[in-house]
């Protein structure tokens, strides 16, 4: 189809993004910029305890406070919600139990923010403090009291276990066995825009919510459920997000609260979270403890791999069931692994809920896998780049866990960064204190399944054309900075042969735009793009048939280019775009077309196989150069070379921005960012609180810290993508953290097996080495977990068909049966 060598006039041409002007003039309207007449302001009272039962809430003094219009508590919003159908565990306001410091218990709606804030202090809440779980080990050790009353048992949310072939047999065949543990600390998105929402009752009595959300469709469904009004009477408008990175892809309690308040008061109600509250909203990177066991032949060929992950979920489910599956899903798509066993366990702790952040569940195991490969290369005396080139998975293959890979440009990515970085002259050759490290990664171009089971399209696009020549394109996708509006307009303009400025786009509005599932899982370019191509091709057919009849030429010879429709064999024979649309409107009546996209059916047909499949996978390789001070442990990163297999760059300016932005965020995770907690002393309530609930203390890289980035795009169009495009928003982050760790080892010979890699850890590892130890900083203990019997799914080369061949007893069911 489109993955060909045609000449394009919009696609692939570096150009100003369609919303560029709005963004540089400050005219982009974010959620907090929405101001309505008679608007009131909402503030939330949040729990000071990490785990407590609410004994009583007295709101009478707050209600009597001057300027207060309404006070809501859990009793006003009793219905639970959650992003996944299997974890409907959140209340807009807690009515019985609070589960982390910051969990909301009441809302005040007042004439202004200050009044609302003052009134929060007039609400009296009596708590009975419960045992606090700060670490996964505690949650495994103590089943009671439970943080949530669902999940597998005790404080275990979800355990999964899969055997794709016999990993032990793989280890028996191996010449070398590698066993390593890694820890990946949690971190947060830190989008500069604080979450904001405005709810209002429309003149016709229906509800509208403007919100900084990446997933208006899911918010729409949740509002209908919680408010018990038909979804058809609710409109959710996703304002462009001031950065998302996954942090606005969940459904938030404050969205429900302002919606209820607006309905009760029949006045617009706004909330804008403070920065401190954004740290409580979180849904960021899960802290993950990992244990890898890998067997290889002498030449580096992998014979088997076993991975265990222990995932700290925080207090609620969020995307967690998907997150834990993602920690084991994508190991197989980069290098050929013939036998693969994965076990994962997500536990609840009394911390703000973790969720999806850029890379969702995959950067943590990628960190471990790529460091272990560095070790494998060293022990086998093979160059790490050569080793990877040798074991790269083949294109158009089916992995051990039934992920269908199309194009794979990983080999080219590795060759590119090796060449541009001068790898062969640097690796193990730089003076002490300087080093280079290489790592790779891969990511989905859109999740193959929606988060709720349905057979409907994942993305829909509508086109409207009229006699003015204007084309309006409608889609539910959300602009979060990544350039989704630009992709939408660019694709339509390319197909119709018009200028992007001739296309108006309306996006992210559930009342006006066809459903798109949201800006997450790097799905928008591929899914929305394919839907847009279909809608535009249909419009092209309508216009083409009218022009062909008028000019008496064959429709198949018509060319749409340069705002004209003409006979390709006789370009003078034709007309401008506007006249062509007029002819079409006269011939067909009012013009409109639709397009939609549904991902191909997954090859995986086992329970849990819904996480991992994607229409296409992007690939990345990176070389990071570091300078490490062996006295202070200070790490400098002067340069990063990165090559990304994008399929095709639709707008290279934006693609480069996504790659460099990923490198930036990856360096933050590698070197400084951590969502860490500490216990207050007993005299100060013993609460488990954020170490860093402010931007000042939560360190992130500034313009001073950002190294030079040399970006290479590998373009090998993938048949699944629009014009061959694959994702770029998340994949390029993945290799950065392990590449930094590998570079640190090259520079000073110590292994830091956890992030962030901070100077104190380097000094500790150097001290360890000086004392004759292995020169390593990282975890050494993996808790005993009562794993379920693995689901046995024989890989394709062992005659498997994607189905499990056993039916493991479900843990909880088994327990209940034993107890009865």
């Amino acid at each position, binding site marked *: 189809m489109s993955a060909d060598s045609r000449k394009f006039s919009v696609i692939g041409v570096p150009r100003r993004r369609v919303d560029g002007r709005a963004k540089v003039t400050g005219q982009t309207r974010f959620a907090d910029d929405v101001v309505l007449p008679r608007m009131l302001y909402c503030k939330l009272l949040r729990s000071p305890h990490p785990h407590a039962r609410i004994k009583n809430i007295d709101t009478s003094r707050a209600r009597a406070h001057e300027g207060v219009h309404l006070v809501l508590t859990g009793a006003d919003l009793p219905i639970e919600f959650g992003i996944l159908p299997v974890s409907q565990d959140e209340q807009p306001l807690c009515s019985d139990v609070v589960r982390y410091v910051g969990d909301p218990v009441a809302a005040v709606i007042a004439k202004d923010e200050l009044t609302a804030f003052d009134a929060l202090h007039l609400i009296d809440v009596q708590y009975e403090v419960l045992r606090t779980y700060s670490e996964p080990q505690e949650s495994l050790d103590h089943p009671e009291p439970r943080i949530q009353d669902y999940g597998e048992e005790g404080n275990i949310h979800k355990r999964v276990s899969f055997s794709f072939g016999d990993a032990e047999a793989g280890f028996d065949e191996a010449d070398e066995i590698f066993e390593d543990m890694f820890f990946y600390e949690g971190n947060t998105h830190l*989008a500069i825009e604080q979450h904001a929402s405005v709810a209002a009752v429309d003149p016709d009595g229906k509800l509208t919510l403007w919100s900084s959300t990446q997933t208006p469709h899911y918010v729409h469904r949740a509002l209908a459920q919680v408010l018990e009004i038909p979804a058809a009477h609710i409109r959710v408008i996703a304002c462009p997000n001031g950065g998302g990175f996954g942090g606005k892809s969940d459904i938030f309690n404050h969205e429900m609260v302002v919606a209820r308040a607006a309905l009760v008061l029949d006045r617009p109600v706004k909330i804008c979270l403070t920065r401190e509250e954004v740290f409580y909203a979180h849904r960021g990177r899960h802290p993950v403890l990992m244990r890898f066991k890998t067997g290889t032949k002498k030449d580096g060929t992998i014979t088997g791999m076993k991975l265990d992950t222990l995932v700290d979920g925080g207090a609620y489910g969020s995307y967690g069931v998907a997150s834990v599956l993602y920690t084991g899903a994508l190991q197989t798509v980069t290098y050929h692994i013939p036998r693969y066993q994965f076990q994962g366990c997500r536990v609840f702790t009394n911390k703000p809920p973790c969720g999806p952040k850029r890379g969702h569940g995959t950067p943590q195991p990628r960190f471990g896998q790529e460091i272990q490969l560095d070790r494998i290369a060293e022990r086998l005396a093979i160059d790490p780049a050569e080793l990877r080139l040798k074991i790269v998975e083949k294109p158009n293959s089916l992995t051990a866990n039934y992920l269908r890979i199309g194009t794979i440009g990983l080999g080219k990515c590795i060759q590119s960064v090796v060449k541009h970085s001068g790898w062969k002259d640097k690796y193990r050759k730089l003076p002490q204190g300087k080093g280079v490290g290489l790592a790779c990664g891969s990511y989905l171009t859109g999740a193959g399944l929606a988060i709720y089971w349905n057979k409907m399209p994942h993305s829909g696009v509508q086109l409207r054309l009229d006699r003015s020549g204007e084309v309006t394109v409608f889609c539910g996708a959300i602009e979060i900075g990544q350039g989704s509006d630009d992709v939408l307009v660019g694709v339509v303009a390319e197909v119709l042969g018009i200028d992007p400025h001739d296309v108006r786009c309306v996006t992210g509005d559930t009342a006006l735009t066809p459903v798109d599932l949201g800006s997450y899982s790097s799905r928008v370019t591929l899914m929305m793009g394919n839907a847009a191509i279909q809608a535009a091709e249909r419009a092209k057919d309508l216009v083409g048939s009218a022009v062909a009849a008028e000019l008496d030429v064959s429709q198949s010879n018509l060319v749409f280019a340069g705002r004209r429709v003409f006979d390709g064999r006789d370009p003078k024979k034709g007309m401008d775009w506007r006249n062509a649309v007029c002819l079409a409107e006269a011939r067909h009546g009012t013009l409109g077309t639709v397009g939609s996209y549904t991902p191909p059916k997954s090859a995986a047909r086992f329970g849990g196989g819904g996480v991992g499949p994607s229409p296409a996978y992007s690939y990345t390789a990176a070389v990071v150069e570091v300078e490490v001070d062996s006295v202070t442990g200070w790490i400098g990163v002067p340069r990063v070379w990165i090559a990304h297999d994008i399929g095709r760059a639709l707008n290279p300016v934006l693609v480069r*921005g996504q790659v460099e932005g990923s490198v930036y965020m990856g360096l933050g995770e590698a070197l400084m960012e951590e969502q860490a907690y500490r216990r207050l002393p007993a005299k100060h309530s013993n609460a488990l609180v954020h170490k860093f609930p402010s931007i000042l203390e939560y360190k992130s890289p500034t313009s001073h810290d950002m190294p030079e980035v040399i970006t290479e795009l590998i373009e090998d169009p993938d048949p699944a993508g629009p014009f061959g495009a694959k994702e770029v928003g998340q994949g390029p982050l993945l290799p950065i953290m392990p590449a930094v760790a590998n570079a640190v080892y090259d520079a000073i010979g110590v292994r830091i097996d956890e992030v962030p890699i901070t100077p104190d850890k380097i000094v500790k590892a150097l001290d360890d080495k000086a004392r004759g130890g292995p020169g390593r900083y990282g975890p050494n203990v993996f808790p005993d977990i009562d794993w379920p019997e693995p689901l046995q799914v024989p890989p394709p080369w062992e005659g498997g068909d994607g189905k499990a061949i056993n039916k493991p007893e479900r843990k909880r069911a088994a327990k209940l049966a034993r107890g009865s």
Partner: protein
Amino acid sequence: MKKIEGKTKAHMTVTINDEAAEVSFAPYKTLLEVLREDMGLMGTKHGCELGECGACAVLLDGEPVLSCLILGVECDGRDITTVEGLQRDGRLHPLQEAFADLGGAQCGYCTPAILVTAKALLEKVANPSREQIREALSGVLCRCTGYQQIFESVEEAMVRMKSGSAQPEEAKR
């Protein structure tokens, strides 16, 4: 509900984006709040209201300041420039052109602060080096771009300002 008695608002005159203006506002409000809530200038953003992120930077008498850390009442009689004041004669400022063309703005949320800060730099230093640009912008956090396209946008704007080719080409908007 009780009636409001007497005057509770502060009043001041400022030069805002080269125009004289009067504004009344609650006296406890920061400049950020006065701009956004009382003057309708929504281009200036906020990411923390604690002076940490830099998103609320504006120019006060030509100097970049964090508008969340300055009270409105401190600004009486002073000259304020926000992102809305960068355009001239119906045309974008060369910095705006360059940021739009070269990917200097992704989500656009820190962009207004970066733009006014860069404007102050270019007015003070004729040919800033990459290091000087880094230093000048280091108080504004951007989570999207990785800064590289921001640096390049500032450098491109310098070139365009010198050659006077700030006017957009037909294909750009």
